[in-house]
């Protein structure tokens, strides 16, 4: 497998009136060709910001990417001039967002919005673009695409709008599709439709996918590799089966324990992670998870642990403690 995208030491800060928000604190990962990477974490853990940063979509000010590299096709996206990055964005790397209502322009027809990317990036004529737009809408499962292409976004349901977003994202045959919580606003049966669609298109086109979510359930059936984020750091990363089968970071263990399972016959008490995530303006000096951790030792409060290999297939965690050998504190 060849590496498609490499992120090294990415750091993003937001300079606000209340202080400097340390949103992303030096994260590194790679994405291989055709691979699906899941990034999970709770709100405010920096999962969206980290990916928006790789695409240079952080509003400056107040945001600023203060360090790191994003290598795509041998070039650092963070050093690229803006007009060049626009040729990558939406073309080789496409994105779909959480809210399909606010990501579509309400005063333009669906067709016009899909055609725009085709004319811009692929240099198609208006009639070619329209023809291709109809094909794309059919591909993502919009019934009667020839008729509905002239409809406006408000005439589409939430699931249908997300399909339109996917059609737009796929219009230029991207190598990478970044999906930022694309199903969070949708009902479960519609979510299943969208996940199914992305899986099918991924396998047909052979693109790599980065799927950002807070839902560990979706990732289990979709991703090859998973990154768990907490307070702007990667705390654990592993191939999907290893992460769920043998979670090693106390936060990952806590997250999996706090989820009720649909296939559980006996109802057990949920393991809740006490306390709250830290304030990103005033991060503690040691491990950011230490105040909520059940396995805490003195060192956790002083030094932030680096991400280190603990298991096969590059299973890495950022933790001083071997949770398997340590009793849990009460």
């Amino acid at each position, binding site marked *: 497998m060849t590496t498609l995208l490499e992120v090294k030491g990415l750091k993003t800060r937001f300079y606000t009136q209340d202080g400097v928000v340390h949103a992303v604190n030096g994260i590194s990962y790679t994405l291989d060709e055709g691979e699906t990477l899941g990034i999970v974490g709770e709100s405010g853990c920096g999962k969206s910001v980290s990916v928006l940063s790789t695409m240079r979509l952080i509003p400056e000010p107040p945001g600023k990417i203060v360090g790191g590299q994003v290598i795509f096709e041998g070039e650092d996206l963070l050093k690229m001039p803006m007009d060049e990055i626009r040729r990558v964005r939406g073309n080789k790397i496409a994105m779909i967002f959480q809210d399909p209502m606010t990501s579509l322009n309400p005063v333009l027809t669906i067709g016009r919005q899909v055609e725009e990317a085709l004319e811009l990036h692929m240099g198609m004529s208006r009639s070619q673009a329209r023809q291709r737009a109809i094909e794309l809408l059919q591909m993502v499962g919009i019934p009667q695409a020839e008729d509905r292409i002239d409809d406006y976004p408000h005439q589409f349901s939430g699931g249908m709008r997300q399909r339109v977003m996917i059609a737009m994202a796929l219009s230029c045959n991207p190598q990478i599709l970044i999906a930022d919580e694309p199903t969070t606003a949708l009902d479960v049966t519609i979510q299943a439709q969208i996940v199914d669609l992305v899986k099918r298109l991924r396998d047909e086109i052979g693109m790599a996918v980065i799927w950002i979510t807070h839902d560990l359930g979706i990732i289990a*059936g979709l991703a090859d590799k998973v990154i768990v984020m907490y307070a702007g750091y990667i705390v654990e990363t592993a191939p999907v089966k290893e992460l*769920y089968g043998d979670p090693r970071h106390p936060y990952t263990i806590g997250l999996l324990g*706090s989820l009720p399972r649909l296939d559980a016959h006996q109802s057990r008490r*949920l393991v809740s992670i006490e306390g709250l995530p830290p304030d990103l303006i005033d991060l503690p000096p040691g491990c950011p998870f230490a105040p909520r951790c059940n396995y805490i030792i003195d060192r956790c409060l002083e030094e932030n642990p680096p991400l280190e290999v603990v298991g096969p297939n590059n299973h890495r965690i950022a933790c001083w403690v071997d949770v398997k050998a340590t009793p849990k504190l009460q």
Partner: protein
Amino acid sequence: MTEDNVLVRVEHLKKYFPITRGIIFQRQVGAIKAVDDISFNIRRGETLGLVGESGCGKSTTGRTILQLYRPTAGSVFFEGQDLSKMKGEQLRRMRRKMQMIFQDPYASLNPRMTVGNIVGEPLEVHGVARGKERRERVQELLQLVGLNPYFINRYPHEFSGGQRQRIGVARALALNPSFIVCDEPISALDVSIQAQVVNLLEDLQEEFGLTYLFIAHDLSMVRHISDRVAVMYLGKIVELTDRNELYNNPLHPYTQALLSAVPIPDPVVEETRKRIILEGDVPSPANPPAGCNFSTRCPRVLDVCHEEEPEFKEVGPEHWVACHLIA
């Protein structure tokens, strides 16, 4: 099931919202059938889960039971008394026994009131406690839901989402109710915080013998917290049974599809799972299809489904389904 075991009995409940045209001379041109003829019981001390997708009428059901919306037709009996026929002072006195926890902890707390006033307001309104006594009761309630009693003079914006939801729980508990409608109380919270609030609700139920109607769209959480589960689709209950029976032996095609659509956080299980992918979207409740409401999306639809509405009947012990496929 004996009658005295039942705390809430809902009979043929309907709630339609009118669709009107015109500004000065408004005339009704249709109706949104948010809740369309549903019947069920809630037993004392149990948690009844009510699941369904957005717009299926589950929240409207909860609100209509509490008479926050007056029903279009049908009755709600609470401890044997028909709430839908009560009004004014009589209804107000009944409200002490039934409370609600809302979905959005940011919208359901008045930002200009202190926590003490928010939690203490029901005590004042119902003339239960005033002054020092009220303050003490509020502090006791805050402690009960896991908040520091010294937070009494703080304002809602000083709290996180999970803490705000605890304030909402404390307010609901203030009058020692026997019945609480929990309307998606954890949907707005992060995963690790959800577990905190669910554990709190379970502890309180055990301590005070509370009865819950737990409305949610997260089927895994509903299975976890409920004793029995009702599944709603487009204003109707399509299936109602014991939680394990529902998950092990779902009979209605909608329940089957809904369950199969829920992802399970285990890649090994997910690999071999078969999904029933439903086509299309939920029809508009202003114009539901003829016959069975689910007939437009049902993978196993029969001719009769387009013509006749299936009856909601008991097909096994304590297992109610509305479907033509199940004779």
